[in-house]
């Protein structure tokens, strides 16, 4: 049971509708790769490859970093990572508790002592 938390799913589908981009994502599923490594299986210009990568990055599936002259691409861990689910869970838990805190403060407002004269 895997839960995907990529936001705008439309962008993801648009990104993956293209066969080349699907192949790139599949390759990145095995680990990070440089742009030239990703380009290798395809008979297309480097700029075409870069175009595909831009679409993948804007969909949120892939992110890349340049170190020196090498740009390394990897799947964005947020797309399929447990950590992201846990973060969302933590935040939601706090939201819930803060609601309960509000209820508690309302319920006990009449019992407040030593607060000074009521306004």
């Amino acid at each position: 049971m895997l839960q995907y938390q990529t936001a705008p799913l439309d962008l993801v589908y648009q990104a993956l509708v293209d066969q080349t981009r699907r192949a790139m994502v599949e390759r990145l599923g095995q680990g990070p790769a440089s742009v030239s490594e990703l380009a290798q299986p395809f008979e297309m210009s480097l700029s075409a490859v870069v175009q595909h990568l831009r679409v993948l990055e804007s969909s949120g599936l892939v992110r890349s970093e340049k170190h020196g002259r090498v740009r390394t691409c990897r799947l964005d861990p947020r797309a399929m990572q447990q950590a992201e689910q846990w973060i969302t869970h933590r935040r939601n838990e706090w939201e819930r508790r803060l609601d309960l805190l509000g209820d508690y403060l309302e319920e006990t407002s009449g019992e407040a002592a030593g607060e000074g004269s009521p306004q």
Partner: protein
Amino acid sequence: MSQTTTDQSITHSTFVLERTYRASPARVFQAFADPVAKAKWFQPPADWRPEVQSMDFREGGRETSEGGPVGGPTIMYEAVFQDIVPDERIITSYVMYVDGRRISVSLATAEFRAAGAGTHLVLTEQGAYFDGPEAATMRAQGTSEMLDVLGRSLEE
């Protein structure tokens, strides 16, 4: 030699939650500081076992809780109060475990700001979240599963 990503990786995340309550900062602070008051709102979800909690509210003191969904994993919370300024601020560092596996190390700051006769509560949580050891495999599997699903949907 191919590069594998089996090392556990970390995701950092910060979130900020804010609320305004019609209660003085002293009262809101007290709801955090007094274990009896805190238990009234700091509760687990309805489908969870009751939590076992302890709190020693002072700088350097610890707070713990253990609980989890019925029939589900055990979730543990271990915290240290790093900074307490009465009616103003509480800073807590804490670790969370799921079935004994450490899942996050975090810093939580609660600020109680006077807003008229009420309080503007600002909660800032900054955490280092541990990716599971199986995550690299999941990622590879997840990719191919996702592509399968997509492939099927495109064939329709």
